[in-house]
């Protein structure tokens, strides 16, 4: 792995020249946004006052606030649209290339929905599916691809006054990672975060055994792993062939290092990881300077977190028949 000094040199050469004009644009956007927000704020206050003068209006200030907030949100989207894309092409792309020259970065690309569903990790039907920041490439012998994803489903309810209300619920939001696995297998094995067993012990395990939506429960011998995860698979032997004692340890350590929820699936000789990062990765920020080395190393660490999975899970070890 390259050192911090290498990264600094790379930033000087590839990123800084383009970052300065971007910083000037960012300041321009903030100026326009401030002016626009003040104007909108004033107008909505005026609107509120006018509505308050008319008796039949319900909650005049609330209406004015909502209208104002919507307008400001629209303004932000309008002003930052091109800026975000340009920032990603100019800053994130060279950082991705720095991690490994074979990696390709597509700011608007994402893991397609059918691949997300092929993992079998999330059974809920999807109503809205979005993603960005796709990275693809091959690290040594292992082909990888990952992107940010946000999958949601909606519920519609009608209240007593006959008003329809649609609510969106997140199924998964975070980084979705797919890599070629180093062993051949034909079935399906999923590793999910375990809630039931942690709180209910043996009773929880008995309940998991009856989970109809999933394949057979696979009880593994590592007690710490069993406390964190529950494993379902189509084949008891194959699940253990994939989840060797060392891979169980590695998954456990990865989860402890990341401190977020992790879902892992093994399907079609590939490994799928869904990492709930809880924040939007690879985005520029608007209200603080971009000329900050800490911000840029954070981007680097996020890319390395994903590419490091190959190393963390030992995917480049190819001592079996799969090359």
């Amino acid at each position, binding site marked *: 792995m390259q050192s911090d000094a290498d990264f600094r040199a790379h930033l000087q050469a590839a990123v800084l020249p383009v970052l300065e004009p971007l910083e000037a644009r960012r300041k321009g956007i903030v100026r326009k946004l401030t002016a626009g927000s003040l104007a909108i704020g004033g107008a909505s206050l005026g609107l509120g006052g006018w509505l308050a003068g008319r008796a039949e209006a319900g909650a005049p200030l609330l209406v004015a606030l909502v209208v104002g907030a919507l307008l400001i949100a629209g303004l932000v989207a309008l002003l930052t649209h091109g800026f975000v894309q340009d920032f990603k092409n100019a800053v994130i792309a060279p950082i991705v290339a720095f991690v490994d020259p074979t990696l390709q970065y597509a700011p608007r690309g994402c893991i397609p929905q059918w691949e997300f569903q092929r993992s079998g990790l999330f059974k809920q039907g999807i109503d809205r599916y979005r993603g960005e920041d796709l990275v693809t490439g091959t690290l040594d012998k292992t082909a990888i691809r990952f992107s940010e994803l946000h999958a949601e489903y909606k519920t519609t309810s009608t209240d007593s006054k006959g008003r329809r209300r649609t609510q969106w619920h997140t199924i998964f939001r975070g980084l979705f990672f797919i890599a070629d696995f180093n*062993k*051949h297998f034909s079935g399906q094995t999923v590793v999910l975060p375990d809630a039931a067993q942690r709180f209910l012990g043996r009773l929880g395990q008995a309940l998991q055994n009856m989970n109809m939506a999933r394949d057979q429960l*696979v*009880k*593994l*011998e590592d007690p710490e792993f069993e406390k964190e995860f529950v494993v379902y698979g189509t084949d*008891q*032997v*194959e*699940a*253990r*062939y994939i989840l*060797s004692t060392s891979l169980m340890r590695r998954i456990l350590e990865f989860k402890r290092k990341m401190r977020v929820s992790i879902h892992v699936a093994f399907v079609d000789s590939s490994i799928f990881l869904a990492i709930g990062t809880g924040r939007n990765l690879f985005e520029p920020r608007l209200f603080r300077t971009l000329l900050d080395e800490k911000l840029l190393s954070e981007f680097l660490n996020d890319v390395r977190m994903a590419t490091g999975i190959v190393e963390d899970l030992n995917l480049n070890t190819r*001592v*079996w*028949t799969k090359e």
Partner: protein
Amino acid sequence: MPVSPIVGLRQEDVGMTWVLVAVGAVVLVVVFGVYNSLVGKKNAVEYAFASIDAILKKRFDLIPNLVATVKQYMQHERGTLESITALRAKAMSGRLSSDEATAMDGQFSRALRGIMVAVEAYPELKASENFQQLQRTLNEVEEQLSAARRAFNAAVTDFNNAVEMFPTNLMAGLMGYRRRQLFEIPETERQTPNVGNLFNA
């Protein structure tokens, strides 16, 4: 007055009878459930053992190939090669009991490891593509074998828990189920390999 389905009983006796019938039905359901789960666990153990058997056979099937590849290079290790061929023949000759299979597996693993150590002395052989492919396949079979052993041990542990824990142990006693042995690694293999001894031999 409601007509009782059980003729000739007084009202309160009818009520009591229904309670008894209900209790009896619940007991029966529980007994059936326990019985079925025990049979299911026993079958899971047998299934897991069969999958070890299948992979052991896969490993035996690799031997003629291995011997053919290795023979032309290893003139001095005739003995080792012959002993492993003999072991395979013995294993393939008929059905082995689970104890015999365990013992055979141990001997076989040792013989195989002997060959792999001997190969170190033949750089040409080690470099040959044929041998490398074979070694990958062997690694894979060993990994699958270890997975099958773990699956077997998990099934046996599940079965043993049911045989020894209350209340399933009562039923297991009636059915004549006994604790089963886990698939253990033979004592000789459990010792940490002494690298120095390997070189002295």
